[in-house]
């Protein structure tokens, strides 16, 4: 039996294909369309899912859609009623799409795919909950979902047991922690639904007093923006909260912060590329602290209600790896699991798994233990691409030779493009479509920022380390939580290593590590180990294989184009090695297209 899960029409469209309850293919539309956070109908992703299994749309038994469109439409209309006539412009902006596409899912599926079978509609946060619990390793777990907004729900908690998923209580729009974070993202001049992670990366530059204890009253008192920003949100001790809507415009405008919020925070909305002032950094730190306050309080409450030692998280806020790193240490939960694609794209998987387990009553049999669920290219396909394009390359006779040469070049200070196996599911590159480098070089962060990624200097790079070595370098939870495999946990780097790992040590001494297990990705694991034998530290810088403003590469063509337009020195693509210097002509200049 095949079930196709779809999420689309808001941001991060994606498709997931289940075969007899197992995820056999999952990918975001942006990787194919090359439009970051593509919100359109995920036609290319669906086509790839079907092709990967050699089936046609007529063999799909059910399509599971990731939300209830009529409930969402009801909320949109309610927003306009509550905000008449201020919502005149947003009404004009939103309605054409709503009337022609968003509430006509069945006809869109028929028109785009020729699909005439059953469509199952799974509520947005139920899809989040199912996507968090059903692929997790737990038989029982508390579930917490926090995002911008689904139909009405913005935050919820519940319980998963066996094949069942239940959400017990929620907080509803417009009160949304995700939208608060997005409003501050907009205030700081970054793009909403895209750059929230930049605010997280900026937050350690704000004033705080970690000597008083992280998250303590003293820590917060050191940042004057914290008490100001607390005026816009009322947080109950059970983690529930309410926003003061006088500070926000998102109910009726395409802008998020209101004039009153700007006055509260001491200045106007920052323009993109304008200098980041200490005030901006304090604001980033304050919203991060508030987010952590709320999430940790919700988790304590969810533990109190469910009494379960396991927790799974989903929703865009679950991608806040700084917050995630505090959960096991500061709540009663003993185990945590987070889907690598915890945002809305992951709902295509959640909806499909919910349809399989809870609606159709079939057994729960899938465990997501790696994120390599996307397209891959055979040696023959890559070889043909390189030959057809006249790209100079060499080919390795063995896996060992490839690993050895890659480690040697990394140790020599080269920036390496790493295109191997199936593409990752989720926003992070995890060793299938990655740019790798030596974390021990003091100049590596600057090289990567200036020549390759064209991104803000304040943002740190992530370290990749073998799972069994993590405790040597990081003060991580023990046992090591599985979400660290998906780069979803930030932990302090041990003091003695900080100076030796300048490219991956953030200003506050933390690192957003990716742990690598050999069972999940043997080639990548062996490369890290081999690099360790040369350098003395088995760790690599791992950053996504793209430039700012573009999605992560998907095909060999994308990878070659990215390499030749940036300062990547060489590309390990399948069994092949392509060197920049052998293909001397830059085919484009990535700097000219780097955007937010």
């Amino acid at each position, binding site marked *: 039996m095949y079930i196709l899960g779809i999420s689309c029409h808001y941001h991060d469209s994606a498709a997931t294909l289940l075969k007899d309850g197992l995820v056999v293919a999952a990918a975001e539309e942006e990787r194919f369309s090359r439009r970051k956070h593509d919100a359109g109908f995920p036609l290319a992703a669906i086509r790839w899912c079907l092709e990967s299994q050699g089936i046609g749309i007529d063999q799909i038994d059910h399509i599971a859609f990731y939300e209830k469109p009529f409930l969402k439409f009801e909320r949109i209309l309610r927003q306009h009623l509550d905000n008449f006539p201020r919502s*005149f412009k947003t009404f004009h902006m939103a309605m054409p799409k709503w009337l022609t596409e968003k509430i006509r899912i069945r006809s869109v599926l028929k028109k785009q795919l020729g699909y005439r079978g059953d469509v199952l509609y799974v509520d947005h946060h*139920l899809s989040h909950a199912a996507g968090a619990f059903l692929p997790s390793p737990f038989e029982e777990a508390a579930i917490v979902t926090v995002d911008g907004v689904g139909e009405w729900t913005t935050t919820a908690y519940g319980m998963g047991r066996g094949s069942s998923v*239940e959400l017990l209580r929620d907080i509803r729009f417009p009160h949304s922690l995700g939208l608060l974070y997005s409003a501050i993202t907009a205030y700081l001049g970054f793009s909403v639904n895209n750059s929230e992670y930049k605010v997280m990366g900026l937050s350690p530059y704000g004033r705080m007093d970690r000597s008083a204890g992280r998250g303590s009253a003293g820590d917060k008192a050191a940042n004057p923006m914290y008490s100001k920003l607390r005026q816009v949100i009322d947080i109950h001790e059970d983690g529930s909260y309410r926003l003061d809507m006088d500070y926000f415009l998102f109910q009726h405008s395409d802008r998020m912060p209101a004039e009153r919020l700007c006055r509260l925070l001491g200045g106007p909305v920052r323009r993109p590329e304008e200098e980041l002032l200490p005030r901006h950094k304090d604001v980033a730190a304050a919203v991060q602290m508030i987010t952590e306050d709320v999430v940790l309080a919700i988790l304590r409450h969810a533990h109190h209600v469910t009494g379960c030692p396991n927790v799974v998280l989903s929703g865009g806020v679950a991608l806040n790896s700084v917050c995630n790193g505090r959960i096991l240490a500061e709540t009663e939960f003993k185990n945590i699991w987070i889907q690598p694609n915890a945002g809305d794209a992951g709902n295509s998987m959640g909806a499909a798994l919910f349809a399989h387990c809870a609606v159709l009553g079939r057994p729960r049999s899938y465990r997501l233990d790696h994120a390599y669920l996307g397209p891959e290219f055979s040696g023959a396909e890559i070889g043909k691409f390189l030959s057809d394009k006249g790209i100079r390359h060499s080919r390795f006779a063995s896996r060992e030779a490839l690993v050895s040469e890659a480690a040697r070049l990394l140790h020599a200070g080269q920036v390496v493009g790493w295109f191997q196996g199936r593409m990752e599911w989720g926003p992070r590159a995890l060793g299938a479509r990655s740019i790798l480098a030596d974390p021990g070089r003091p100049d590596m962060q600057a090289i990567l920022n200036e020549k390759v990624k064209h991104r803000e200097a304040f943002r740190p790079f992530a370290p990749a380390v073998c799972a069994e070595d993590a405790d040597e370098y990081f003060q991580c939870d023990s046992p090591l939580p599985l979400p660290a495999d998906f780069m979803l946990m930030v932990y302090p780097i041990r003091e003695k290593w900080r100076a030796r790992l300048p490219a991956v040590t953030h200003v506050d001494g933390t690192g957003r590590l990716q742990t690598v297990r050999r069972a999940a990705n043997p080639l990548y694991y062996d490369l890290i180990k081999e690099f360790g034998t040369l350098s003395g530290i088995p760790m690599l810088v791992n950053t996504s294989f793209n430039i700012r403003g573009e999605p992560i590469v998907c095909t060999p063509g994308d990878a070659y184009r990215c390499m030749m337009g940036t300062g990547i020195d060489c590309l390990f693509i399948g069994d092949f090695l392509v060197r920049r210097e052998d293909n001397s002509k830059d085919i484009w200049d990535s700097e000219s297209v780097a955007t937010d």
Partner: protein
Amino acid sequence: MRLGPGFSNLLPYAIAAILLTGAGHLARLWLNQAAAPPAPAKDGLRRGMGRAWLRGLQAFFHGTAACNNFIFLSVAYFAGIGITSLFAGRKEKKFPAPGSTPPAGYWQDLNLGKREADAYYRPF
């Protein structure tokens, strides 16, 4: 070909078409939906004129569609949303005064996930 008596003077129609196109373009600009201008192509005179004619037609149709949408949606907004909002009670939006947080918190009952299978076949 002879046009009907109403078409004896094409000028008013041309002016109306230009105004409609312009108004539609302005509406699209206001809604941040204006398409980027196409890159200039190196064509000969005949092909260039053909391309310009097609672009003009496209702009006219887009403009007309934008105008129609604008008028239709404005009527729907003021007649539908506006009148309904007079009768529908607005949601309470008061933010609690400091220290007045309700003891029960802000959680609401949801109980999602325990419905009959039929409920998932509906888009609502």
